[in-house]
């Protein structure tokens, strides 16, 4: 089990990591999610021992790794650019770590072959890595990290260098491979889709601090604050005040709304909150048939998505909302929208 305790790190005299602590348990895949510059890659390099922290500890099964050099940590690390050794063949790349363990040639060749099979690269063993496509390189890099059966696997934006279609395909493969191997994994990415597909648990990092931790569903259903919501692409955020605690009601500039009760904090009347309106909350109404959760909006755009229509509307105070509705509307029309309460969430602050 990996324990990261209160890591601080400066970069060019600016604090980059400000007291980060978390744990990774056996068999789980943890996704470190954050924008570029949030310090997530640096955190990974500190765990690997490639960089040192200003303060804080990295422990493996309770043993402090301070002073244990990179090559003795028995961790795996896959770089964004893969860093495949250009002077070695695919097989030699994959068996490199096994050779470092002092394993005999026959055994390490067999092990490297099976690692390559695992990522569907078996027939490529004798190729030069410089002849491979981006996706093939990615697979080989993964096999190379897995072959020595590291105690912990770290992946730094492993799909970042690939185009969209390839990324989606490899994302699924990666998920399956990680499930099979059961090696505890830290997966760094800025892409929420990747994080949601691959992670058993997400850790969101912003400005050097952990903002939220939890399963993909917990994070998506109950974003901790407006930064998390915005990061997840949820942009319909409205400031408001709690009016009622039981079957909670929130008063905003758009009107008052009955909302879904939050998971882990109480809504004290009078306290400020941010109302998150999910796009699928919207329902078009013909008449004013409710006192709450109903607003009048002006349609600015309407795009057909196949399953639904995405509309962009302007409410009072020039507030822009992105919504999904089931029927088309005219641009320039003024319509009534009802918001279902199960899609309305309150965020702290």
């Amino acid at each position, binding site marked *: 089990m990996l324990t990261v305790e209160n890591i601080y790190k400066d*970069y060019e005299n600016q604090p980059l990591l400000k007291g980060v602590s978390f744990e990774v348990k056996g068999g789980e895949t943890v996704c470190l999610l954050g924008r570029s510059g949030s310090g997530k890659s640096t955190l990974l390099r500190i765990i690997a021992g*490639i*960089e040192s922290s200003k303060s804080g500890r990295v422990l493996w099964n309770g043993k402090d790794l301070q002073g244990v050099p990179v090559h003795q940590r028995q961790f795996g*690390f896959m770089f964004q650019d893969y860093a495949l050794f250009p002077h070695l063949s695919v097989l030699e790349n994959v068996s*490199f*770590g096994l050779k470092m363990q002092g394993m005999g040639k026959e055994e390490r060749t067999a092990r490297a072959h099976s690692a390559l099979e695992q990522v569907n690269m078996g027939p490529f063993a004798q190729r030069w890595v410089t002849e491979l496509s981006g996706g093939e390189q990615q697979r080989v890099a993964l096999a190379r990290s897995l072959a020595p059966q590291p105690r912990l696997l770290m992946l730094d934006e492993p799909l970042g260098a690939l185009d969209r279609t390839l990324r989606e395909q490899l994302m699924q493969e990666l998920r399956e491979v990680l499930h099979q191997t059961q090696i505890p994994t830290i997966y760094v990415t800025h892409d929420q889709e990747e994080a949601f597909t691959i992670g058993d648990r997400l850790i969101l990092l912003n400005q050097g601090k952990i903002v939220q931790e939890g399963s993909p569903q917990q994070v998506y259903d109950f974003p901790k604050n407006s930064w998390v919501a915005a990061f997840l692409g949820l942009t319909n955020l409205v400031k408001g005040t709690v009016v009622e605690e039981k079957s909670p009601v929130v008063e905003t500039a758009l009107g008052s709304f009955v909302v879904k009760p939050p998971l882990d904090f109480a809504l004290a009347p009078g306290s400020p909150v941010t109302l998150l309106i999910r796009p699928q909350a919207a329902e078009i109404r013909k008449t004013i048939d409710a006192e709450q959760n109903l607003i009048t909006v002006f349609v600015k755009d309407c795009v057909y998505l196949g399953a639904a229509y995405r509309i962009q509307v302007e409410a009072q105070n020039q507030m822009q909302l992105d919504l999904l509705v089931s029927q088309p509307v005219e641009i320039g029309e003024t319509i009534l929208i009802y918001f279902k309460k199960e899609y309305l969430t309150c965020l702290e602050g």
Partner: protein
Amino acid sequence: MIKSPSWKAKGSWKSLLLWLAPILFLTFFYFQPLLATFKMAWQVGSNQGLTTSVFNKIWAPLSFTIWQAVLSTIITFLVGLPMAYVFARFRFAGKAFLKVLVTIPFIMPTVVVAAGFNAFLGPKGWVNSLLISVFDLGQPPIQILNTLAAILLAHVFYNTSVVIRVVGGAWAKLDPKMEQAARSLGASPWKVFQRINFPLLRPSILAAILLVFLFDFTSFAVILLMGGPQFATLEVEIYIQALHLLNLPTAGLLSAVQLVFTLLLTAGYSLINRRRVVRLTPRDPDEVEKPIQTAGQKMMVVGLVFSMLVLFVLPLISLVFRSFLRLDAVRGERGMVQSGVTLAYYQELFINRRQSLFYVPPIDALKNSLVFALITVVIALVLGLLAAIALSRKTNWNRLMDPILMLPLGTSAVTLGLGFILVFNRPPIDVRSFPLLIPIAHALVALPFVVRTLQPAIVSIPETYRQSAAVLGASPWRVWWLIDYPILFRAILASGIFAFTVSLGEFGATTFLSRPDLPTIPIAIYRYLSQPGALNYGQALAMSTILMVICGLSIYIVEKLRLPDVNDF
């Protein structure tokens, strides 16, 4: 991405450790001799004052040095610029071969080139021999040796390739779309050159001018072997004063003058290089080169190929042919001229005809040269690797150390040789009893090239390779051995071969340092060339041919290695 700052902080004193050996070496074997030279010059100046006699001693060789260098530079550019243009802008068959040809002068020892021109156009060269036998002449009709023309010819041979590489290289990086844009904006072809191409090429042209001038200014073997005794440049005069007249003070004075000039030229060159403001990026040749279309273009390309073959290949081929050809009276058979193919000159290499203590069989010179060259390779590679590794760690030391490392490049070999004589004149390190000074001097000459070849190769290895290897369990030493070393291998091999050929061909410093019983091949070639007789001449050509073949093989191997991103200078 974020570079590791901790590594930088640690690197500071570690880098100093790396620098230690190169710094000590340079201090002891480069700066010490240089200082001794200046000290000697200072003593002459303060004892005698700047009298007219002292001034005259300096002025005559200095003015001739400048004069021939200016003349050589102008002619080199008249020949080289059109070649650079055609080379950069046209696609034609055999271009790859010509590219290899252009590298010949970089690596071919001066004595070989001098012997080549001698075998081509000299009094016993095959052109004259042919004319004599065809027209039954008593005198060789072409009298080019020992004239200024011979010197200029050799300089053009050497430095045209500098123009082609530096200016042509920059030309090949100019985006042709700029020209097309300028043309569409209403500029004539001449205006395009004047307003677009020339301003962009100017820094490269300037750099090439300085470099060619520097090479012409410090050329030694060419002047000595092709100009003969009446043409004394500073280099030749230093050599004559020091080794023939044993007048070390005057030699020191001249050497100091030479040093001032070369250091200024080197400083100017690196200043220009640093100020090449417009960064030109490498372009796909397909984008820049165009196929030959008009008859005029065809003429240009044919002209280029022809003149390059004449300039670069004919002298060397002449050398090989002439070394197998007997055209003169045979020993002991006065008047009888036998002509035909012979191996005699090569067989003679194994025989000490003079039975003299100081004249060893010529083949021993080859042995000496190979041993010295191997030692040079070891010294230059060890120091060069240390310095290149240190340079590739971006620390504050670099700004100071980089130019210092390049200084020997601008220092003439004769100056170096004289400096060694002035400093290392008592045991245990004595020029007369410590032959290791020869490879040490050669390593000094080779070091800048070694560093310039290795450094970009080291920098080009991404840090993530080393980190990946470390994560996979490789200790720092194994990372070096399994990652850095194999990736650098080709660059190490190339720079090693380069140091090897530099040592094999080095003439200037070696004339000062070699003992009569331990000659190197170039020294032996010089001895044989400057003695009369067909046999001596033939042996000189035979040895030159052997040296040429070794150096040619080296070029071939280095070309095959295809190093990426190696700077020309």
